[in-house]
């Protein structure tokens, strides 16, 4: 169950980050009168639709996990993706991951692992 959640989360995040960087949402688009139009535009982007599909898989797997595990276990354990996604952000999304950001991401990953104990 945890593997399904992590795998689908990683794919969803990479797709979302890639696509949202190409078509950034402006602050003005978040106003009540313009949100519907913004959502309609987002819904037409295939990578985002695929990302939402993977998020739905992750969501239902998470619901199943919550029904059998503590919240304080279920939430942290699904964050095993933090380190993996940082590596993929560097390799695929070409983000500049500095030494400080690596240190921060690793510290968070260690913290999340400890929270899951």
């Amino acid at each position, binding site marked *: 169950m945890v593997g399904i959640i992590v795998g689908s989360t990683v794919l969803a995040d990479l797709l979302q980050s890639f696509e949202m*960087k190409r078509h950034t949402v402006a602050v003005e688009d978040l106003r009540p009168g313009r949100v519907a139009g913004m959502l309609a535009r987002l819904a037409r982007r295939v990578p985002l639709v695929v990302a939402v599909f993977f998020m739905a898989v992750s969501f239902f797997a998470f619901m199943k996990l919550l029904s059998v595990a503590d919240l304080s276990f279920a939430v942290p354990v699904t964050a095993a993706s933090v380190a993996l996604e940082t590596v993929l*952000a560097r390799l695929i999304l070409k983000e*500049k991951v500095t030494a400080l*950001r690596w240190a*921060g991401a690793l510290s968070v990953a260690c913290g999340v692992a400890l929270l899951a104990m």
Partner: protein
Amino acid sequence: MAAGRAVAQEVQITSTGARRVDLKTKLLTVFVVVTNVLGNFSMSWGMKHQATDLGWAPLGYIRLIFTPWVLLGTTLLILWLLSRMTLLGWADLSYVLPMTSIGYVLSAVLGKVFFGELVTWQRWLGTSFIVVGIVFVGLTAANTTRQEPAR
């Protein structure tokens, strides 16, 4: 020593202004965290009080979504999804992930307060690691793939 130099260099880079994290990105990060934590809490509360084995049948999950707490949780998580998508357009994935991980700490606190879940010394230590990691990542530029932040 090396970590100290890295911090000093990073602060110098971010203090140049052009790549500093802007207010809208900070506010949206807070919104993403709050909707995620409250959404997960509502979901968990609803699931605990439902107390039935869902099995693998989709109908059971769909019926469950329309119970009050799970519906509230789902609504908050939809808001979280949309706001996080927007945030991913404004900031790096490798920035967003650690910065929003404070939600794990808040979830653990809510788990202890409302569900009486055990918070061991390992979990407190984990909380400290996460906070340190967030401080480190918070010192880096939010968006390294574009020169100017999106408007």
